[in-house]
Each structure stands twice: as C-alpha cells, then as structure tokens.
C-alpha cells in the first residue's frame, strides 16, 4: 500500500442488519472517493452480496460468529475484504447461475453479481479459517466523474397494504 492509502476495518455481527451497515459504510467511502452513482451502486451491491455470503453460507447465520469487513483506498483502487468464520469454499465449485439448469434456482447469484460488478474478485482462505472475499474497483480518473450518491425513490400506497 502507498503511504496515502486509507484503511477502515469493522467487525460485524452475524445478523441481517450487518448487510445494510456494511453496504452503507462502503457506499460512503465510494462516494468520498469520487465514484459516480452507477459505480457506487455496483460497489454497494457487491458489498451486500459479500456480507450476505458470509452471513448465510459462511457463518450459517450463527450469531456467535463474526464477519470482518475491511476497506482499503489506495491511489488507484478501492479494495474490500469480507471474512467469515465458516469452513471456506472453492470458487470453482460454485454453480454457474446462468446455466439453463440453474436459472430457476432461488439462490447462488451473489458470487456472480460480485464478479460482474467489480473489476477484480477472488476468494481465498481467510485468517479465521473461513473464506475471505477480496474485490476491488479501480478509482475513476481524476476529473472524469463527479462524486454522487445512490438515488433512492419513494412509492405510493393503496389498500390493502403490507409493510416490511
């Protein structure tokens, strides 16, 4: 890492809310780093999917286990690490969600989305014995894009209604 690199690390509970916390945290870093709205969306989505993977597949939703999230910002890219306390997995054994026989699968698209949305993506054995997802996005060239947040829109309502 260069002397100008910034590093942020947080330990998250194995809880659904951790997915939102991680996404929000990384979105703020991405916005501050100058990524445009579309890239922020892709980074945020990738972080969500990484933490969902750790929460569900890695830690098996067991609350005593932790999820470790680290964000590094160098002069060329933003790198995100998501480490779980599971048993790890081999990337080559993950089924292809685009294969005809998997199209109607209700799970298994998270890894695909991270790969599609980030510039670099890999899974290695983590220091905890679980999986460590490492993904990065190249920073926009200086002056090429303006910082922008992720848009959110509202919606109407009618009856009967349900709310989450």
């Amino acid at each position, binding site marked *: 890492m260069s002397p100008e690199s910034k590093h942020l690390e947080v330990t998250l509970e194995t809880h659904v809310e951790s*997915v939102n916390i991680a996404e929000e945290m990384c979105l703020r870093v991405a916005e501050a780093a100058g990524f445009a709205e579309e890239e922020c969306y892709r980074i945020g989505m990738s972080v969500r999917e990484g933490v969902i993977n750790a929460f569900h597949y890695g830690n098996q939703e067991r609350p005593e286990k932790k999820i470790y999230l680290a964000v590094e910002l160098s002069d060329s890219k933003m790198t995100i690490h998501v480490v779980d306390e599971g048993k790890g997995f081999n990337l080559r054994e993950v089924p292809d969600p685009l294969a005809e026989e998997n*199209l109607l699968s209700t*799970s298994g698209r998270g890894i695909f*989305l991270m790969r599609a949305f980030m510039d670099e993506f890999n899974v290695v054995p983590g220091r905890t014995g679980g999986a460590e997802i490492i993904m990065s996005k190249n920073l926009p060239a200086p002056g090429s894009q303006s910082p922008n947040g992720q848009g959110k829109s509202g919606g109407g309502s009618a*009856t009967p209604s349900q709310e989450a």
Partner: protein
Amino acid sequence: MTLRATYRDAGPVTVVDMSGRITLGDGSALLRKTLLDLLGQKRTRILLNLADVDYIDSSGIGELVSGYTSVNSHGGELKLLHLTKKIHDLLQITRLFTVFEVHSDEHTALRSFR
C-alpha cells in the same frame, strides 16, 4: 427504504404495486408473504408492478424466482411490470429475462394473461 406492497384487482388479474427495496430480510419476506397470501386466496394471475422498486439484491431475485415457480405450480402466471433500469439490467445479466415475462404497459400486460 421499507418495502411496501399493496394489491388491487384488475379483472381476473391481481396487480401488486410494490415500492422500496426487495432485499435480504424484511423485504424478501414481505414479497414471499404477499404472494403466498394471494395464492391462498386463489389469486393465481399476478402482475407485479415494480415501478417504485429501486433496488433488488440476490435474496430479492431469489424470492422473485421462488414466487414465479410457486405461482406456476398453482397453475397460474406471474408477470412483471415497469422495471426500473437497475432491475432491468439485473434481470438481463442474470438471464432471468428469459424466464419472466416483462411488460412496460399495464393494459398490454393485463391482456396477456390467459
């Protein structure tokens, strides 16, 4: 943002207007509950209006697919209406455009049901 789901009858079709985010946790759970409620009421022709859904993650995608297969198994049809660009792109890269029937006009969508 909280997910909201409301539904209305349009002839034999039930239109579900959703707004917010369909993500892991409450959002996905609400989509599942809404579809199960409708199937429980024998409403099997369902048009999901996603005009105000601005975000879906892999959990939400999984729930859409699950809903699609559930409705099909009840002899019904589940179709999608008014996708935002982000969700359109997401369904495209995951090849789910080949699974779901997607419409951009409600009248056309309603007429397309058997």
